[in-house]
């Protein structure tokens, strides 16, 4: 999204670039920054993915072999599909959790308290991502908060094992980690809805539920779409959470990419896997934007 915005800005600036435009001058430092830190490594990874590893050396002959391995071997297919499945689950869970929060914040908090509430929503960011993941380990673990409570209450005799080190734990941890990122865009979209539209809907005969589906939700869609993309895209590539709470069946494609670059010492295959995941995620994101395009047209 950032890249697309940047690209647009550059394009627009180029059209008027007969005379040096102040816009172009203004964006040149971030543009250079983006070029060096974003474009250059990607070009490097793309090149790497078409080479091959010969023990410790990189063979610089052009080959599709890495992509063939990445797309045909069972283990990579399984991990790729699992990553996407987990990311979809995380996205759905996060957006379903975030929407009521954003709705409550936008519609039921008096104006003068909204700033305070927004501030409270950012509190989870005060602790590091890693600390939050470890907290979930403490909550879900064998001797953790949930098991401890349930055992003490006599509801279970033995600690539950199925709540940690699996995909469900990954989904839970990530949905919690992403929640504020999803709340904010949805909140902004809800705030932008002209309240007289909601009154008009009731005036024309809709009850609260039908009004929600005919007016509130369609008008909040830009925020929902933004939230989905913000959560979905990085989740597919997450490898820390699956590593810490996922157990063997919770590992995802990014863990495999890490393995290729480190233990397996096959950088080209790692690069091909990374680019394949990127292409897949990019395609899915574009398809999603295309499918929801009718809600994204900005009304004037």
């Amino acid at each position, binding site marked *: 999204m950032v890249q697309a915005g940047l690209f647009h800005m550059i394009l627009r600036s180029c059209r008027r670039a007969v005379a040096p435009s102040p816009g172009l001058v203004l964006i040149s430092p971030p543009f250079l920054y983006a070029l060096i830190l974003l474009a250059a490594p990607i070009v490097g990874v793309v090149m790497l993915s078409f080479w091959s590893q010969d023990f410790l050396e990189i063979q610089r002959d052009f080959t599709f072999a890495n992509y063939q391995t990445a797309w045909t071997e069972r283990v990579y297919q399984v991990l790729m599909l699992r990553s996407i499945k987990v990311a979809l689950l995380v996205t759905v869970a996060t957006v379903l959790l975030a929407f009521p929060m954003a709705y409550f914040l936008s519609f039921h908090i008096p104006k003068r308290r909204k700033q305070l509430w927004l501030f409270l929503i950012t509190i989870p960011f005060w602790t590091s991502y890693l600390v939050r993941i470890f907290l979930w380990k403490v909550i879900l673990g064998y001797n953790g908060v949930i098991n401890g409570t349930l055992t003490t209450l006599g509801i279970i005799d033995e600690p539950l094992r199925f709540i940690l080190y699996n995909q469900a734990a990954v989904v839970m941890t990530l949905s919690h980690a992403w929640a504020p990122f999803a709340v904010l865009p949805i909140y902004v979209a809800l705030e932008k809805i002209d309240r*007289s539209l909601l009154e008009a809907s009731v*005036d*024309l005969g809709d009850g609260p539920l039908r009004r929600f589906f005919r007016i509130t939700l369609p008008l909040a869609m830009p925020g929902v779409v933004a939230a989905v993309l913000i959560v979905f895209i990085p989740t597919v590539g997450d490898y820390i959470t699956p590593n810490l709470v996922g157990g063997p069946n919770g590992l995802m494609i990014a863990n495999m990419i890490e393995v290729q670059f480190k233990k397996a010492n096959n950088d080209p295959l790692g690069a091909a896997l990374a680019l394949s995941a990127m292409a897949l995620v990019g395609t899915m994101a574009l398809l999603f934007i295309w499918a929801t395009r009718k809600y994204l047209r900005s009304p004037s």
Partner: protein
Amino acid sequence: MNNDPIIRINRVRKSFGPVCAVSEVTLDIAPGEFFTLVGPSGCGKTTLLRMLAGFETPDGGSIRIDGTSMIGVPANKRPTNMVFQNYAVFPHMSVADNIAYGLRAARVAKGEIIGRVEEALAMVGLAGYGARSPAALSGGQRQRVALARALVLRPKVLLLDEPMSALDKKLREQMQVELRTLQRTVGVTFVLVTHDQEEALILSDRIAVMFEGRIAQVATPHDLYQRPQSREVADFIGVMNFLSAHATVSTPDGMTVEIEGLGQVTIPRSQAPANLGDDPVVGIRPEMLTILQDGTHAAGRSARGSLVDLQY
């Protein structure tokens, strides 16, 4: 048409915290009437209208519409529809979908919806605009969509909150004429809120003037202009010169008063309320004054003066 009022407002009150927006308003509105609430900003017009629509709950008093008490009836179950100040046209729907909105809410059959939407579009002069997006419409056209969207539901009462305030002067005058014609054609009771006294005088069958949450006078435009019942109303509607006077003789035909600096003037009974006391205030509309040549004056109806300045 029977003569029972379509709207009966009885001693309605509404406060927002310490602010008393509407206090003890009692008002009857007849079916088919074009009724206007006019008054300065903040006098409670919108609040009263929103209580009719069901968006505000009165603190006390009763509202009956078409013989049914509206206490506890939510806005979506009332026989009223509203045209909002900013029109509140749904931006994510076409013009036709906007107009069909209420019909769909009422689960009218699909085939019937199409016909009624066409009819409503034609009524407001937007035939052929159904597929357009509201973003592609001008302010005046959006207002027509809002009107069509409300009227297509055949409400008993149409409520309009300052519908003209977002339009430029020229368009406003044109829409005023159209609104009046439309109201006569459909025969629906219109309750209009405006702070523009000129608009109120042009459009209405009857006008209620509000000040600080109270109704100061309810009258036809003619009576309101010719016989305002208080100085406040006289001051708000049109331009009026105020002169202090002494009552001298009161006869069944009229009242002779001594106006400071102008001498004696006789006012016909119809223009002078009874029990005015000894020191009434006399109001004169500027257009009622005629400048005459010296010496041609009629006794008791004119006064001497000198012309100081002349503007067109």
